[in-house]
């Protein structure tokens, strides 16, 4: 009985992230549009886009290989598994111990690895430019992320997200400079990883500035749908991650009843909405950077992460 209950909750979360990811993307777009005084596409537009893409035939470049066709599914699967392992409305889910925070980052790394390879598969200049810039950005974003993880893990004494969330929810943690730095670093990394302004612009097809879009330029039809879906999932993942760590209140405890779970879910939705709105606000108020400013941006995140870790020793002995 217990097992079935756990399985259901775990399954519910996996389905929830799947179902909500396009909605979040649509929501952010909508808010952005409103902030720039446009009406914007409807909230459900991403679902329609996905459905349309899925129905269309896929057009492959002549020399695309099997890797090009497999990558979208792998990227999607890796992102989905990662997203399913981040606590959303409840902690201590059945499979939450499958991977800790470091493994989740690495899973996203796997997704990016295959996406970058897919970008190079057809052998066009744009695919190459996208892939090469993507790995450059990742080479800075990943260490920044890991240093942030160090800071958190040192506070919580764990890299297990459920534990981290539980510890950070307790009042003993209090406000700390380190955590603030970690938050800023994590947000910066999240922006870079999700190809948001000012690092990249998901809406652009202005060739010379694009990174992510350049990589997936050759994709179409169902393949493109999987990639877009994966991107939405990733955004949801990062937002959930940030709110789960830094705003851990209201998450259902392990083995909680249906009521607590429902409350957790509502609170999660609310947090996502706030987070999405903040993201949109940030994006509308800032201009895109040149590509070679990005290392500075991420270098700052890296420094913040390291500083956050080191300050921990100063602020309170561990």
């Amino acid at each position, binding site marked *: 009985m217990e097992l079935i209950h756990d399985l259901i909750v775990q399954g519910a979360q996996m389905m929830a992230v799947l179902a909500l990811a396009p909605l979040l993307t649509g929501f952010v777009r909508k808010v952005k549009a409103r902030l720039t005084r446009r009406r914007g596409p409807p909230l459900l537009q991403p679902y329609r886009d996905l459905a349309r893409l899925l129905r269309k035939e896929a057009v492959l470049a002549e020399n695309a*290989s099997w890797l090009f066709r497999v990558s979208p599914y792998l990227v999607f699967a890796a992102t989905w598994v990662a997203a399913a392992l981040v606590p959303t409305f409840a902690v201590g889910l059945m499979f939450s111990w499958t991977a800790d925070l470091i493994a989740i980052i690495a899973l996203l790394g796997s997704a990016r690895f295959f996406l970058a390879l897919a970008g190079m598969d057809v052998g066009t200049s744009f695919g190459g430019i996208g892939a090469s810039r993507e790995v450059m950005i990742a080479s800075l974003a990943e260490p920044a992320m890991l240093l942030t993880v160090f800071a958190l893990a040192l506070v919580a004494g764990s890299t297990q997200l459920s534990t981290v969330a539980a510890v950070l929810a307790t009042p003993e943690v209090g406000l700390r400079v380190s955590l603030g730095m970690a938050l800023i670093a994590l947000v910066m990394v999240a922006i870079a990883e999700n190809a948001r302004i000012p690092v990249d612009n998901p809406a652009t097809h202005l060739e010379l500035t694009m990174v992510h879009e350049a990589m997936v330029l050759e994709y179409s039809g169902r393949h493109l749908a999987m990639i877009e879906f994966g991107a939405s999932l990733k955004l949801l993942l990062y937002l959930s991650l940030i709110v789960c760590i830094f705003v851990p209140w209201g998450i259902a405890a392990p083995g909680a009843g249906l009521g607590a779970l429902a409350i957790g879910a509502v609170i999660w939705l609310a947090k996502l909405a706030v987070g999405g709105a903040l993201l949109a606000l940030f994006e509308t108020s800032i201009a895109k950077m040149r590509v070679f400013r990005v290392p500075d941006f991420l270098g700052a995140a890296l420094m913040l992460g390291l500083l956050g870790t080191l300050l921990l020793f100063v602020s309170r002995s561990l």
Partner: protein
Amino acid sequence: MMEPATILLALIAVLLVTAVAAVAIARLPAATAIVYGACAAVSAVLLAVAVAALIGGRTGQLVLPLGLPWLGAHFRLDSLSAFFLTVVNLGGAAASLYGLGYGRHESAPHRVLPFFAAFLAGMNLVVVAADAFSFLLSWEFMSLASWAMVLTHHRDPDNARAALVYLVMAGFGTMALLLAFGLMAGPGGGYAFEAMRSAAHAPSTTVLVFALMLLGAGSKAGLVPLHVWLPLAHPAAPSHVSALMSGVMTKVAVYGFLRVVFDLMGDPAWWAGIVLLALGGATAVLGILHALMERDLKRLLAYSTIENIGVIFVSLGLALAFSANAMAWAAALALTAALFHVLNHALFKSLLFFGAGAVLTATATRDMERLGGLIHRMPVTSLAFLGGSAAISALPPFNGFVSEWLAFQAILQSPQLPQWGLKILVPAVGGLLALAAALAAAAFVRAFGVTFLGRPRSPASGDAREVDRFSLAAMLALAVLCLLVGILPGFVIDALAPVTRALVGGAMPAQAHVPWLSVVPVAESRSSYNGLLVFLFIAASAWLAAILVHRFASHELRRGPAWDCGFPDPSPATQYTAGSFAQPIRRVFGSVVFQARETVAMPPPGDTAPARLVVEMHDPIWERLYAPIAAAVDFAALRLNRLQFLTIRRYLVLVFLSLVFLLAVLALWS
């Protein structure tokens, strides 16, 4: 039941006999098959014996009346040597299998076959040797055998230079080890490891031995700044030998370091950990940055070996730091991470060199700028190479990730260290490790992407053919092992427990009984990882998504010209190249590390010549350290050489002055 040590030595002797026999039969057409077949069989049996000894906890000793006359040649099998025997023979068996096919393309098999068997024997001997003389003899024998194979294609002057640098550095390393052993043996000449282990070493001795081991084992392993020979020598050898040198021989160096520093030398001070951490971090980052700048596929792999050695040494440094502070459980975790990475690197680096060898066979070039599109022509090779690339980039669910993850877990235990220096350094080194891992992923996206994907950049690449069955079998076997070790890491960790128990007096918790075959280094609430489930989840969800999409949405497919934003260009030259792929990273990191500068050489107005982008890079270590040494030797040789051209009178002056000098000494001496 025979003593395992006896069996091992008998098998090693068979390898040596094979080497001698290979000299005799090297010119026969069947020699390749016979020698590699024999090597593969012997390595496989050795592997089985080693694994059995490791798991069964069997140890053994043997003293042969060879070597130093009053001491004899001591050989000992314990858990540490059993583990490294496993690594050596896993690599050896795979390389022999690969050689069965690859060796057929060798233009000068007589320059490889005898040394190949000898090389295998040498590496095995190092790991079981239990006295200083046998150890160094095997160590240098191993170097020499590989040196000879670096010279297989000796007509290329680059290879000759590589071999020279290699041999000098190997000699340097051996001398450092010799000094270290001399120090531990003391004036009485206690060269047996047992005597060294039981002797009480003064702290100053320990410090010196540690420093000398860093020089000796570090130079063989490729620790910065002693790494310069490695990217020259490893790629010069035939590819299966490169695989052994990179994948296995560097591990034998790690073995030497472990054996002395963790086993024989006594307890080092905690700051030894700092040295290792700093060197390891620098090695990892510098190695992979070099790899990113490299356009020679095999040299790229060699530089990546340096990175991995850095990763291993970071973990070793942590183990040392924890062990010096009596934190046996944390030391065990760090040491497990190091040893796990040793195994992993042996697997995937061998695999990648095999892949590079296959590419070399098929296209006759190692220059990535002349490759491309091989995924169509060599599907199996590219699949295996892809697996290796993913593994070395530390991507879950492959094996590389597990050891990196364990290393990070060990790093997270660092706040419990009492020393402030370590507390602050360890997270910073963790950042370097993360940077190295991310750059490694970039490097292998580049390596795989440029070599196998895209369109062929040269006719040779376009006409490539898939390689033979033996090579493919070796590559696939290793790729499967990479995946298997990645999804079932618990068994490996448990197998390593006796090793860590022997070296740092603790072990990670047993993993075999953890539900779902997870890995739990300390406690489940702190961290855990389950490669099996990650693999199953990804496989299941990808498969599910694909099935659903194909079943319920479209499964139609149309081939058309590439879109490329509306500007498709049929010329493969418009693709991104290895050089252009590395350009962003070169700008970000290379400008600092390599003083990389890009200049555009514009033709004067009216000239129709194309403008050229010139990239200028400097190898800081070669230019600041080795070039001055070489110049100093050259200068001294030049100056002293005048003494060859003196007149007889001047020679007599030398005699006269020596005489007067000695007489003056006598006059002043009381």
